[in-house]
């Protein structure tokens, strides 16, 4: 055993030179190798040594770790020399293995996963959110995968899938919305992310999921692109300005002039919307109690007309919206003679409101709910109401009827997994109904 790190380093360099390797001491527990010219014979040596993780060595660069074994090299003349090197430097002696992707345990690994998510996904990924999203979903526990650095076991990436029941041609099929995908900043070179995403899709497919959908970020799109999965849809944010205060504030420096202009512009907006007319056909009111069985029964009737659509029973609605630990959602219901005919769910923060779900027995009730929401939000000083909606869904016409205009769009990944295809599940002509409330990231 060589006593000092300086001597150990010298020994490694000497041993490596014997092997035809140029070697650099890098960090405390790592060593980088570069092949020198004319060391072709040692490529096969490296292959046999590194067994399953040859790619790093093929690139002429490797990080070694203590679990390194060299049992396959008996016949090689360099065996003794390399073995000495490994023995002399037990903390620097095993080639980096390929990153390991594995399923994570939602409960057992909660602390680790939460720490990772709050560090690299969002500070909002706190314990309350974790408990709610990962553990208490009435459709089932979240599925979680991690990619770990093989040398240290350290988690360098997390992916999650949140269960949904997808209504599909008269049946309900297990589906998942993907989310909380994040990779440690030092490992954002696509490879670990690809391995993680591949594994999660394979596992979901293997366990019988019929559908997976995702609302990918720009970075995530690169991963899908490499996996040859193209977005099939897009979500358009439909927006309706109700007041001009914010825009005028941003453009007119004089407060007095701005106020005058805003009064005029707001009056014009009100006048424009007077033509929409609030309907008397339904009693529309704010729902303050948790959803009851009537929501389950009603949505069972309404969902089929929407196409492929996640189940919205009372348990799901209560969990997804009313029990959300970080956001306050508000429900409007439309009733006729006490019978539930439709509902709209919105989120309101400051000068902006977003319609996150809208479902009804007919388009007219959905429109009535939107008109009522517009009136309420105008009264609350909201500048803009947004309603993200799938670009191809016929329901967008209701929004346009109410004066919403299409703004920016973002891609949506919709995947039919083999299980659904094998069972020849009718996909409702591939028409999905996904709302802002269907996403979890």
């Amino acid at each position, binding site marked *: 055993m060589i006593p000092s790190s300086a001597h150990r380093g010298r020994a490694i360099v000497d041993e490596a030179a014997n092997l035809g390797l140029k070697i650099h001491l890098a960090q405390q527990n790592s060593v980088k190798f*570069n092949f020198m010219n004319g060391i072709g014979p040692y490529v096969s040596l490296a292959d046999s040594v590194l067994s399953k993780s040859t790619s*790093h060595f093929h690139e002429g*660069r490797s990080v070694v770790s203590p679990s390194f074994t060299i049992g396959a090299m008996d016949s090689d003349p360099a065996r003794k020399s390399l073995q000495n090197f490994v023995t002399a430097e037990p903390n620097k002696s095993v080639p980096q293995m390929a990153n390991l992707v594995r399923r994570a345990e939602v409960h057992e690994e909660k602390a680790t996963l939460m720490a990772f998510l709050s560090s690299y996904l969002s500070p909002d990924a706190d314990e309350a959110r974790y408990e709610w999203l990962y553990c208490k979903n009435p459709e089932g526990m979240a599925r979680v995968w991690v990619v770990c650095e093989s040398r240290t076991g350290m988690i360098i990436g997390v992916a999650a899938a949140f269960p949904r029941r997808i209504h599909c041609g008269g049946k309900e099929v297990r589906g998942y919305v993907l989310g909380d995908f994040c990779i440690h900043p030092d490992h954002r*070179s*696509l490879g670990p992310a690809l391995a993680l995403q591949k594994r999660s899709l394979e596992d979901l497919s293997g366990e019988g999921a019929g559908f997976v959908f995702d609302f990918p970020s*720009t970075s995530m799109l*690169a991963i899908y692109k490499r996996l040859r999965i193209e977005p099939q849809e897009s979500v358009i944010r439909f927006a309706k300005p109700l007041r001009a205060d914010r825009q005028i504030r941003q453009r007119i420096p004089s407060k007095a002039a701005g106020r005058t202009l805003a009064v005029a512009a707001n009056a014009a907006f009100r006048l424009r919307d007077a033509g929409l007319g609030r309907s008397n056909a339904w009693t529309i009111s704010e729902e303050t109690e948790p959803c009851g069985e009537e929501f389950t029964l009603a949505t069972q009737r309404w969902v089929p007309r929407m196409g492929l659509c996640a189940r919205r029973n009372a348990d799901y609605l209560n969990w997804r919206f009313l029990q959300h630990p970080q956001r306050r959602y508000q429900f409007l219901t439309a009733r006729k003679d006490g019978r539930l005919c439709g509902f709209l769910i919105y989120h309101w923060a400051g000068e902006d409101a977003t319609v996150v779900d809208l479902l009804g027995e007919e388009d007219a009730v959905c429109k009535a709910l939107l008109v009522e929401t517009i009136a309420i939000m105008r009264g609350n000083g909201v500048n803009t109401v947004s309603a993200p909606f799938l670009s191809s869904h016929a329901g967008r016409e209701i929004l346009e009827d109410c004066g919403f205009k299409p703004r920016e769009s973002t891609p949506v990944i919709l995947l039919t997994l083999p299980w659904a295809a094998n069972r020849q599940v009718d996909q409702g002509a591939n028409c999905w109904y996904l709302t802002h409330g269907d996403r979890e990231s």
Partner: protein
Amino acid sequence: MDQITTGSIEQRIHAFLLDKFPLARKAGVGRDTALLEKGILDSLGILDVVSFLETEFSIVIGDEELVPENFQTLGTLSSFILKKNGKSE
């Protein structure tokens, strides 16, 4: 493929980075500039680089090769290409 050397590889990749990535032009890219850490390359950027490298140097890059070690700097990218072509520094 033309006779390739570390210098010529670096030049071609460098020109590509400057052409495609505004941040590369703004921040400048040297042989040891941390492309990932400085945000010059993100996931989509890496895809562009991969596509460029595969075309420019007639190589195929596997998913398992998309690791930080290969994409960290212009220097590591260049070494990676050399290795892919069976040469070494």
